[in-house]
């Protein structure tokens, strides 16, 4: 266990935000979960008691007859904003006094940094480069992430859970978002920051970064395993595998949706549903590709003269 190495990584000034992100995320997930749990209990209670549902104010916070429903922004909101501004300023001041912004040697194109890391918020994309060619990891995936985020309001047809925390009413959408944001995006940033060392090799936290370490890894392509050697054969084989993934996966999504999310499925148009299918399968393809790479050393699934997937 090389504590010094671990400390060097964790205390690198630009890594401090990531170290800080972990407790922040844990706190806010806890805060959201607590309220979602309370709301879910209230919903369950109101469902079994229709008379109560008619008269209840439907929030977990107390409300009594005669209380004002609205408060003045001045001072009730502005004092919070003022306080927030002061607290953030204090945090920034303390942070800026105690920790210096990094400044390395002057830029030198002839001296490659090893590892050369992107800013921490892009490390998820850099980590993807291990598993996909740059055009997917660096261009197609980011574009799909942005498009995927933007279409969320238009493909989520569930009218429940608007304006309050809940888990039971939105199990699918919340778990999908948690998967994409926490498990994929944040975890890949953590891997990129704390685990990837020189040569973008895998070093466990506390393992010494060995700049001379070599790993003899023989990566194969999926068509090779099936003994396909001709370029045309590889192209056709890959198209079948990738096409088959989307076709069979799409069918699985359909069969799960109509069974377990019948109401939402009924509300969805064909376009909404097919976009959901595509984005969902593309998101899941990432951990699948990571898995087959890490477990079976498979590099490409689909090989063509123009692009490889």
């Amino acid at each position: 266990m090389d504590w010094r190495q671990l400390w060097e990584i964790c205390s690198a000034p630009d890594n401090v935000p990531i170290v800080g992100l972990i407790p922040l995320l844990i706190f806010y997930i806890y805060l959201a979960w607590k309220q979602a749990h309370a709301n879910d209990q209230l919903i369950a209670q109101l469902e079994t008691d229709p008379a109560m549902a008619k008269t209840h104010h439907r929030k977990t916070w107390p409300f009594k007859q005669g209380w004002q429903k609205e408060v003045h922004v001045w001072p009730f909101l502005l004092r919070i904003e003022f306080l927030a501004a002061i607290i953030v300023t204090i945090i920034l001041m303390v942070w800026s006094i105690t920790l210096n912004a990094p400044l390395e040697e002057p830029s030198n194109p002839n001296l490659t940094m090893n590892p050369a890391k992107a800013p921490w918020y892009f490390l998820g994309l850099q980590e993807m480069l291990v598993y996909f060619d740059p055009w997917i990891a660096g261009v197609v995936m980011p574009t799909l992430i942005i498009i995927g985020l933007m279409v969320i309001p238009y493909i989520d047809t569930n009218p429940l859970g608007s304006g309050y925390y809940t888990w039971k009413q939105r199990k699918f959408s919340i778990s999908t978002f948690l998967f994409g944001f926490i498990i994929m995006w944040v975890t890949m940033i953590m891997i990129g920051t704390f685990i990837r060392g020189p040569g973008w090799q895998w070093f466990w936290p506390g393992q010494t970064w060995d700049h001379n370490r070599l790993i003899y890894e023989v990566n194969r392509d999926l068509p090779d395993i099936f003994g396909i050697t001709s370029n045309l054969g590889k192209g056709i084989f890959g198209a079948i595998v990738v096409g088959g993934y989307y076709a069979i996966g799409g069918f699985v999504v359909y069969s799960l949706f109509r069974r377990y999310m019948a109401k939402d499925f009924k509300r969805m148009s064909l376009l909404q549903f097919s976009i959901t299918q595509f984005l969902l399968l593309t998101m899941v393809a990432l951990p699948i590709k990571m898995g087959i790479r890490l477990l079976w050393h498979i590099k490409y699934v689909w090989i063509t003269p123009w692009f490889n997937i």
Partner: protein
Amino acid sequence: MAEENNDKNGKVGLIDRVKDDIQAMKVDIPTKAKEQIEGLKDPTKTQAYTSIFRHKHDDTPRNRALGVLSNVFLHLHPAKINRDAVRYSYTWGMGGITFFLFIVLTYTGVLLMFYYHPTKVQAFRDVLYLEHDVPFGKILRNMHRWAAHLMVIAVWLHMFRVFLTGSYKKPREFNWNIGVLLLVFTLLLSFTGYLLPDDQLGFWAVTVGTNMARATPLLGHEGPFGHQLGMTPYNDVRFGLLGGSIVDANALLRSYIWHCIGIPIVASVLMIVHFWRVRKDGGISGPAPVMLPQEADKPRRGPKAAGE
């Protein structure tokens, strides 16, 4: 008037007039001084004051509302909001903190611009100069950097909260989209700033980042079908981003201009739309009364649906 008549008759001379004026002054000036002092006892009644603040500040509901509505910076808010909408456990305050950090970054950024030249010869030296010679230069740069990191985190947490409360749902779909664009611009702002110290860290981070642009399908010289479309390192999308085939002087200048002028303007416009739409879409989404599954497909009928 008697004096005028005297004037015309030429009987009263200049000395008399002056004497008369002195007599009058002895009364006029002390009266005015008294009035002035009386007026200063309540400065809120002066013309200068009332021209700036257009209403009284007595603690009445009307004045509390006017305090918000008649102030250009505060009128972003409604006069009154739902009593639960101020609960921090619901809002997390991350949108506001993001905006505050944007202001901090603009402020520190403008100050940094006074000391920085976006040229290969001077950029790195300017940062050294900032760190060692400029009064408070070090804390200025530190604060700019850490506020930028904090802003990225705040934006993510804001998006996370908006998602978890389903606040992107009808009628706020469009504003969620503006928000996603603002997220992208926040990341780009941070990324373009990374190169500016012109040190190894920024240089290689930007090299790694823009190398991906080589592989853009159709538009990059190493991307799928890029070669077939005649893309070379000297005419593809990466060349456009860097102003050259390597990260060099032009890339520094471009990233400086995007960082200080281009993206802040676009982001500011989007922010205006974002805040405006928050109000136009009915204010903050909640905390709304919970809805039961059996009510899902029924139209919501205003406050009655909340079971009052």
